[in-house]
């Protein structure tokens, strides 16, 4: 402590005694671990979130997202690891002193208090005068577009309104860190969409460091600066939506984020093949492997069209499916049925048409096959 003060005095900057990542990032999780008996809920998780940044914790149900968030808020004691905010180790600090807003999956509104009192709950803890409390609560409710609902009880609100009250209750304190646990999962599709944008906008305007837990990839892609993909208590990859989508680091990430074709590959004397057709790919690991190919990175072509450097797989168009904003063609090939996105404006092939699929070797990703 003294050391760091001295260092700051001398050069007018923060001391450089810690790794630079930890120094720059606002919220840092190091080796966070939680076990429940035999189950490892969170396995030595590392994560660094910049000030004002919004990071999604994306992963399937049961992968340890909630446990991570609860450890962050101090609601669960980790078995190992540290939680640091603004270079301050909070691991041993009790929840009420952490200054972290938490929006629970269940909203957790106080049923015995009206909406205004719910929102003002934390302000009262900070010893703020009643009139000021009321004013700020009204302001926060206006922020989430719930002006006029002050006197209602939580049970008199719809799910979406309750969720916004929970958000207002957390935001009114201007917390250092905002934690959202599947906060939109109970809403209907339309409300979810508008809430996504509202929360994103509020988060940006207030520049609150945010960790957003979700199992919904659209939510993760639209709401956050970066995405951390979680599986079985670990972060498998962290990066921007583009990075995660275009260059998945692991087989799990490739399969979990976005639609993708999985093509089993075989090895022969000359290299790899899919259903007997030779395939070229980059970054191929040892052992049995599968090729992962995004539907929009595969081109539909006539059988007569030359392949050039691209991989080529012949097939028969089975069906074209219109999915709202685009069309997808299901193509039966020697390597199984593949989904191919139809380029905008391109004519759909007739059902049963004989076609070819083309893709550049570098667009596909190859990962070792998991034992079934």
């Amino acid at each position: 402590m003294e050391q760091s003060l001295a260092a700051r005095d001398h050069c007018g900057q923060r001391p450089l005694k810690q790794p630079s990542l930890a120094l720059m990032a606002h919220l840092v999780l190091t080796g966070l671990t939680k076990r429940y008996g035999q189950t490892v809920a969170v396995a030595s998780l590392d994560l660094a979130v910049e000030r004002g940044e919004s990071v999604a914790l994306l992963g399937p149900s049961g992968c340890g997202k909630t446990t991570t968030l609860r450890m962050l808020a101090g609601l669960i004691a980790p078995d190992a690891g540290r939680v640091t905010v603004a270079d301050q180790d909070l691991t041993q600090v009790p929840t009420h002193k952490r200054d972290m807003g938490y929006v629970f999956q269940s909203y957790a509104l106080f049923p015995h208090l009206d909406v205004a009192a719910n929102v003002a709950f934390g302000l009262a803890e900070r010893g703020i005068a009643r009139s000021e409390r009321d004013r700020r609560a009204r302001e926060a409710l206006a922020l989430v577009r719930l002006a006029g609902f002050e006197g209602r009880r939580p049970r008199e609100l719809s799910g979406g309104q309750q969720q916004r009250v929970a958000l207002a209750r957390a935001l009114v304190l201007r917390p250092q860190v905002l934690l959202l646990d599947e906060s939109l999962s109970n809403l209907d599709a339309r409300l979810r969409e508008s809430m996504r944008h509202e929360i994103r906008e509020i988060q940006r305007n207030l520049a609150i460091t945010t960790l957003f837990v979700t199992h919904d990839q659209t939510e993760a892609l639209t709401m956050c600066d970066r995405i951390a993909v979680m599986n079985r208590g670990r972060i498998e990859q962290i990066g921007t939506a583009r990075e995660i989508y275009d260059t998945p680091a692991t087989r799990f990430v490739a399969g979990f984020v976005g639609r993708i074709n999985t093509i089993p590959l075989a090895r022969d004397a000359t290299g790899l093949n899919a259903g007997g057709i030779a395939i070229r790919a980059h970054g191929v690991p040892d052992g049995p492997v599968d090729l992962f190919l995004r539907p929009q990175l595969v081109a539909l072509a006539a059988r007569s069209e030359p392949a050039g450097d691209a991989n080529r797989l012949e097939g028969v168009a089975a069906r074209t499916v219109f999915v709202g904003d685009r069309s997808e063609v299901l193509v039966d090939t020697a390597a199984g049925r593949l989904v191919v996105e139809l380029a905008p404006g391109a004519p759909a092939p007739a059902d049963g048409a004989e076609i070819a699929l083309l893709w550049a070797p570098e667009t596909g990703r190859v990962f070792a096959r998991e034992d079934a």
Partner: protein
Amino acid sequence: MNTGAGASRSLAFAAAGVIGLLLAPVVVVVVISFSADSFIVFPPSGWSLRWYERLLSHRPLMAGLQLSATVAAFVAVLSLILGLPAALALARGNFPGREALRAFFLAPLLLPTLVLGLALLLAFQPFGLIATLPGLVLAHLTVTLPFVVRMMATNFATLPDDLEAAAATLGAPPLRVFFRVTLPLAAPGLAASGALAFLLSFDETVISLFVSGPRASTLPVEMVRYVEGRTDPMIAALSTVLVCGTLAVAVAVERMIGLTRAVGR
């Protein structure tokens, strides 16, 4: 479909029959309480309120009523105050031996009250607690506390998830969480527990017989004494008053949380 309806109808008849059977003695008592006869005769040959008037001027029974009400009030309040921390520990605490403690709190429920009464008599004698207000209160607490602890523990355990956690994330230290969230939400259940403790104490007879004395006797003890000597409709009048009182408390509790939820686990 038809057989199902028939079955449910015969079930309803059976239920009505059982309830009728249970209530019949009460009805008889209420009817007799308005009797004009000097002895218990059913049906009475005439009607009057004379036994109610007689009851009001009967010193020992009125003194018993007053004592019982006082004891029950103390027992209810003390059950809540003493039971609250235990209930919280049972519902929230995560300590070794929690199950053993839970079993311990259930144990007196299974002990024959006769044995408990004798034990209390032996234990209280040296301290001069027999036939005193503190002695009676203490004795009744041994009966009510396990009930109240168990009821309140259930009450705390069934509070909605995450509310206390939410209060903590909003900056409330543990004690403030308790007073601002836990207690208000548990209040109806606590009131019901208090009411139950009151009724249990008021109704307690066997243990009271052991620890009462000429100096201080609760109402049930006085009633037993009275009935030993003679049988006239006055005791029916008293019973009617007690039934009404108990019913009033039960209705109040039902209003607050629902009796089934209060007693159920």
